[in-house]
């Protein structure tokens, strides 16, 4: 049975891209309640052609596929254009006002400046969003010479505010149009789609988030586009299916290259495609065909986003060649690969560590610090009554200091001068390390370390004649050696220093010493030698100059001719290190931020965030939602859950309340909107960090979609039965009235988004619909 679309009947539906729809209900639905279902259908008053026939994806056939791909219609959707224009109007209005740093523009602005100057920085978020901002700034001719010092300080004329804010604003506008498209694609009434678009349009929180240099609107746009394309691909066949999935995959890759929370959108897309494959497994297709279909989808969905992600980082590293303030987060090798900074210090330093080398030893992974000693001893007794060796302290110190210098010495050789050719230290060699300033040797012995008593203390040896012999021999164990007699190279070699007498390794324990140790970090010798904190590398390096200085120097000059360009890291090495650091980076966001909120508070909009307050009037900007939409959305989630449970139980008892297609649509909506909402919302309950309302926005867009669907569904139920049909008119009136209320509320609160009106105290009290919202008022002076 093939129902050809009757185009005359849907003249108000200008958007339809599909040319024809196929209904195969009778084939794919071996429903025992068939008669009942047919009866229901006769009551189905909704125009047939508006409903998705989900049969295409279930019943793929090459013949149909060809027909679809051959007839490609391009139609202009006036509603789409209309929504876009409206959105652009609201989002772009007075974009350069206020001319002050608003909220997180502080950070993103800083990053844009650093991109402009090409100075390396470290941020725990991926770079695409910042790159887009930079691109806009670059085109508008921003020179990077503005210090983003604090929220609320005024911009100078050299900052192209409008251009910088344009990217999020345009993204935020497109979001309205894409929401409309997504809703259409799910094949609900066009009115439902328009409703969804309008709700996003008249949502204050999206407006506020789109008007400034913030990344959420970009992230949400990419995410929603990705979902849209994925849905399109699941309902299409042949080439268009492949193309849509590819576009979707790229878009999703962009999404999580803006912010990692975009990963949840990506998971949703994977789930949707997985569901499609799963449904096809239940069809009569040949196994080979199925396997291929699954295989290419998996490849596209995994490779493309990853490729985008890697490319974004490639661009990131290319764009930032210079050393900058965040260098010390990275390893020495990474730092040395940047222009300036460490590279300028280490340029021309000898490569091979040899007998007589003066070195600084950096703790290679994790916290940045250098092996350090100073002329202070361990206290005789610690506060817990344990004794110490009372020898000179050895610590790990986080700042560059003259006491970080050590001299490498072979135990049998008395002179410290570097021989010629230099007597290079190799993997497995046994050395002593003399502290440069105090000339004491690095030592360890069977005394419990001050803060980690299970490990051995490390000290610089002082002979007290108390039958405690020096145990100052260390074996050099090069972790990343390529051969067994590899030389110990500065920067490049990752070494473990194994204490010869005990077999323990020199290790940064992570604990801080008390005030007697100047709160520096403890260094111990640990029996567990495989720990990552036992790895060190030589950072600065020079050869000890002997008495005959001039001659030595000449030799040293020739020694320095050893290739120094070794610290060319490949992209993959840098990429891997950056990824590792981003994952390991613990955000030290301040706990108890004034505007922080809990996930449980979001659905009821308990807290808002103050973004900006004008210095000379009470004009202000807040991130605050449209409470009318917000509450309706929360109610819709509850309603949907109840209906879901109800339908499931009814179905379990073999009662079909809905026609089969409506059921199908109900679950489709659930899998995209409801699941999307939960996926973007629930994980925050398990996050142990300071959260803000804007973390909720990616979930909120799905909530608005769900809300539109629930309204659509209620309408559908009402007109399904003859008895309730008259109520549909009442319902429509209710929805229109409610929508008007939404628009009014939006209008009322938009002063808090544009920040262009000086508000009086009574205005603010008027806007303060909840006691928990905090608005700011200048004190009367």
């Amino acid at each position, binding site marked *: 049975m093939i129902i050809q679309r009757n185009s005359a009947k849907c003249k108000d539906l200008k958007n339809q891209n599909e040319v024809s729809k196929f209904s195969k209900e009778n084939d794919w639905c071996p429903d025992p309640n068939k008669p009942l279902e047919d009866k229901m259908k006769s009551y189905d008053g909704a125009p047939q052609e508006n409903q998705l026939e989900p049969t295409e994806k279930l019943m793929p056939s090459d013949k149909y596929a060809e027909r679809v791909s051959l007839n490609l219609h391009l139609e202009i959707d006036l509603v789409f254009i209309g929504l876009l224009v409206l959105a652009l109007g609201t989002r772009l209005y007075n974009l350069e006002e206020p001319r002050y740093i608003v909220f997180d523009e502080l950070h993103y602005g800083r990053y844009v400046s650093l991109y402009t100057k090409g100075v390396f920085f470290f941020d725990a978020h991926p770079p695409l969003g910042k790159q887009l901002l930079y691109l806009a700034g670059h085109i508008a001719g921003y020179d990077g010479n503005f210090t983003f010092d604090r929220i609320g300080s005024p911009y100078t004329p050299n900052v192209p505010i409008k251009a910088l804010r344009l990217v999020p604003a345009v993204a935020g506008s497109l979001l309205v149009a894409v929401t409309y498209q997504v809703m259409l694609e799910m094949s609900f009434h066009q009115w439902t789609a328009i409703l969804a678009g309008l709700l996003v349009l008249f949502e204050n929180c999206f407006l506020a988030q789109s008007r400034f240099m913030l990344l959420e609107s970009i992230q949400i746009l990419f995410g929603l586009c990705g979902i849209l394309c994925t849905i399109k691909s699941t309902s299409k066949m042949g080439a268009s299916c492949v193309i849509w999935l590819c576009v979707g995959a790229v878009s999703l890759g962009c999404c999580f290259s803006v912010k990692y929370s975009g990963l949840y959108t990506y998971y949703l897309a994977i789930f949707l495609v997985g569901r499609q494959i*799963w449904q096809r*497994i*239940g*069809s*009569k297709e040949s*196994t080979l065909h199925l396997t291929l279909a699954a295989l290419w989808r998996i490849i596209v969905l995994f490779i493309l986003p990853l490729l985008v992600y890697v490319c974004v980082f490639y661009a990131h590293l290319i764009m930032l060649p210079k050393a900058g303030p965040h260098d010390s987060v990275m390893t020495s090798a990474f730092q040395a690969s940047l222009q300036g900074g460490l590279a300028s210090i280490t340029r021309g330093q000898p490569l091979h560590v040899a007998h007589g080398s003066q070195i600084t030893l950096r703790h290679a992974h994790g*916290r940045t610090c250098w092996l350090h000693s100073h002329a202070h001893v361990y206290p005789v007794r610690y506060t817990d009554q344990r004794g110490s060796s009372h020898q000179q302290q050895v610590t790990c110190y986080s700042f560059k200091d003259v006491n970080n210098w050590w001299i490498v010495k072979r135990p049998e050789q008395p002179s410290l001068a570097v021989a010629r050719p230099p007597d290079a230290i190799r993997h497995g060699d046994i050395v002593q390390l003399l502290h440069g300033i105090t000339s004491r040797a690095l030592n360890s012995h069977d005394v419990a370390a001050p803060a980690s008593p299970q490990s051995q203390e490390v000290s610089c040896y002082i002979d007290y004649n108390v039958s405690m012999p020096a145990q100052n021999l260390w074996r050099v164990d090069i972790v990343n050696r390529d051969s067994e007699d590899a030389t110990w190279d500065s920067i490049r070699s990752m070494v473990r220093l194994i204490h010869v007498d005990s077999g323990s390794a020199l290790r940064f*324990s*992570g*604990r*801080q010493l008390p*005030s007697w140790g100047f709160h520096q*970090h403890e260094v111990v010798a640990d*029996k*567990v*030698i*495989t*720990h990552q904190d036992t790895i060190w590398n030589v950072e600065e390096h020079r050869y000890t100059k002997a008495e005959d200085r001039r001659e030595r120097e000449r030799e040293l000059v020739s020694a320095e001719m050893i290739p120094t360009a070794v610290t060319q890291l490949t992209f993959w090495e840098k990429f891997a290190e950056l990824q590792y650091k981003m994952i390991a980076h613990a955000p030290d966001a*301040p706990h*108890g931020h*004034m505007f922080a909120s809990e996930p449980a508070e979001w659905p009821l909009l308990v807290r808002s965030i103050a973004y900006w307050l004008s210095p000379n009037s009470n004009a202000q900007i807040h991130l605050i939602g449209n409470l009318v939409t917000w509450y309706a959305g929360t109610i819709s989630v509850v309603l949907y859950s109840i209906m879901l449970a109800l339908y499931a*139980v009814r179905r*379990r*008892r*073999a009662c079909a309340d809905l026609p089969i297609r409506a059921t199908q649509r109900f679950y489709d909506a659930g899998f995209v909107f409801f699941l999307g909402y939960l996926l973007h919302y629930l994980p925050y309950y*398990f996050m*142990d960090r300071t959260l803000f309302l804007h973390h909720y926005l990616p979930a909120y867009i799905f909530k608005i979609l769900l809300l539109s669907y629930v309204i659509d569904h209620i309408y559908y139920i009402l007109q399904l039965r003859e008895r309730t049909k008259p109520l549909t008119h009442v319902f429509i009136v209710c929805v229109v009235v409610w929508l008007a209320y939404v628009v009014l509320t939006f209008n009322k609160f938009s002063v808090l988004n544009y920040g262009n009106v000086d508000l009086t105290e009574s205005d603010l009290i008027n806007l303060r619909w909840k006691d928990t919202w*905090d608005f700011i008022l200048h004190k009367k002076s």
Partner: protein
Amino acid sequence: MSAKKPKITSTSPNYKIWWTAFALICGVTFLTRFYKVLEPDHICWDETHFGKMASWYINRTFFFDVHPPLGKMLIALSGKLTGYDGTFPFEKPGDKYDDARYEGMRMFCTTLGALIIPLTFLTIWEMTKSLDSTFLGTLLLLCDVGFLTLNRYILLDPILLFFMSCSIFGAFKVRSLTDEGYGPFSTRMLAWQTFLGASLACTISVKFVGLFVVLFVGLRTVADLWNVLGDLQKPVSLTIKHLIGRSITLIIFPGMLYVFFFWIHLTVLSKSGNGDGFYSSGFQARLQGNSLHNASAPKLVAYGAQITLKNHRTGGGYLHSHHHLFPAGVGARQQQITTYTHKDENNRWIIKPFDREAADGVVVVRSGDLVRFTHLTTGRNLHSHRERAPITTKCMQVTGYGEDGVGDANDVWKIIISGAKDGEEVQTVRSRLMIVHYLQACVLTTTGKQLPKWGYEQQEVACNPNLRDKNALWNVEDNIFEDLPKVSFEAYASGFVERFIESHAVMFQGNAGLKPKEGEVTSQPWQWPINYRGQFFSGSAHRIYLLGNPVVWWGNLVFLVIFIMIYVINSIRDKRAEALGIHLQDGKERRLLNAAGWCFAGWALHYVPFWAMGRVLYFHHYFPALVFSSMITGILTEYLLTSIKSYLSTEIGRTMYHCVMGVAVSTTVYSFYLFSPLAYGMSGPLAHEPNSTMAGLKWLESWEF
């Protein structure tokens, strides 16, 4: 599940084998568990905590702990019954017990720990009705050295695991009864449900991780109800009856039991102890020996009264000042204000109207009043100004300012009773006060951070411009004022419900506070299933090391992966069969896979949540998941063997089946023999040295024995 199960009756030949296997498992369990159970005779690992707490129960002194009370109460009860008098100090691991009667407590824990094994046997049997799976699954658990070690000492884990096993067993018993069609209110059904409910309540009353087993049973119950609902032969009312029966026995009854355990806990601990400071004034008034017990003070606070202000944050101290100034460079050089957790003369303040030295006659302080606080011993006023607080720089500094109560306008504070209207009278203990600085519009709070040495390591007090600060609530504790009639503190003492709720708030806060410090090496969830690193229970001459039997653990890990693969393949096969109209038969294999599926759900529920936890984690948190994991291995081994057997001829198939089973059993037992010194005590050199008894057994570098 089909109701046609091999029924064990006394006449069937299986009957004998079943009992032999069960008896064998029980016998070996008790032999292994009680062998050398009293060694070492010193405190091992966390016995120091739980032993100490048992002593406190026996002495009835109040203490604070992050775990709910049942486990510790049971330990205390067993100690009391076997003659332990609660005098041993349990100072630190390694201390000799000497004359202390620790045997009873240890035997009690070991007994519960031993009972887990037969319970597991019964559970797997209930799930699969297949002796091979049952035997193998149980044997794995029995032969796990880590499980043995953990369940032999005075710890909460054996108790927790015991109740958890009871719950799982109960859940599957109830499922069988449901499948067999027992009525929702039949005696058998109700009895087993009550047993299940009681086990759940006990599990969660031992440790909060019991929540996971509650979730598991919840899932199981929903599945049962779903099955009942799906039977179109039966009316819906049957499902509703089942629902009602289960709500009563599995929700209401355990809830009441849980509250009852707390009631015992709070009733037994009636004397003041070292945990008082964590609780509010009202709570402390219940404890004998606490200064608030049997004390009396005026009910209302009047101007001119000498008061102490206690911070409402859990563990919060008293507002305090002393004759010392903030050091140079730390805000204004005025007198320090801190909070101090001990009772002291320097905690006293006089409350005055903001504009006069004293009110005319007796005037009661009301919410919304403007007041000043003058420190009794130094005569300085509580003061704040636009200077940064010493540690929390977002807040303003709070100092003592002025001479003999004469200061400036920055000494004025507004008192607001939280959640009350202006004009309400301020009451001793009961009223929760916000103290807002009148000029700076910030609220008096304590940040809980310790001041450096110059502040005698007391806690910082600051004025927070964020009025929503949760720590900014105070209550008046002492209230000395002659002209008002005194009321006994008995009136303020919290009732049971208040104390119940408060102890939970304190426990949750305590749990949330167990965060790893920077750089501290903690056990990570990914290390657990691979048995990456253990935990020393006892050092020196009698070394005991908590480490899983690697054969069992790594086997379990492999079978977890195998399970996922089998499950996916099977699902796809079913789906395809359905589409192509092939009818797959319901057989033993399906039942085994279903059982393994539930075990997998249990394993995931007891393991995955740890990934999302921010608190300090330990290796032994994995052991509940291990129970499920071992069951999967037992069940899947049989599943795989049966599947392979069906491809072979009967003769070869049976031989193969028995050979593999034999190898599996003997490998497990032999590995237990090899690694048993970990649990029974090692002495001599460490394992990496050649002459050690454990030489060659250090298979991973990270093991420390």
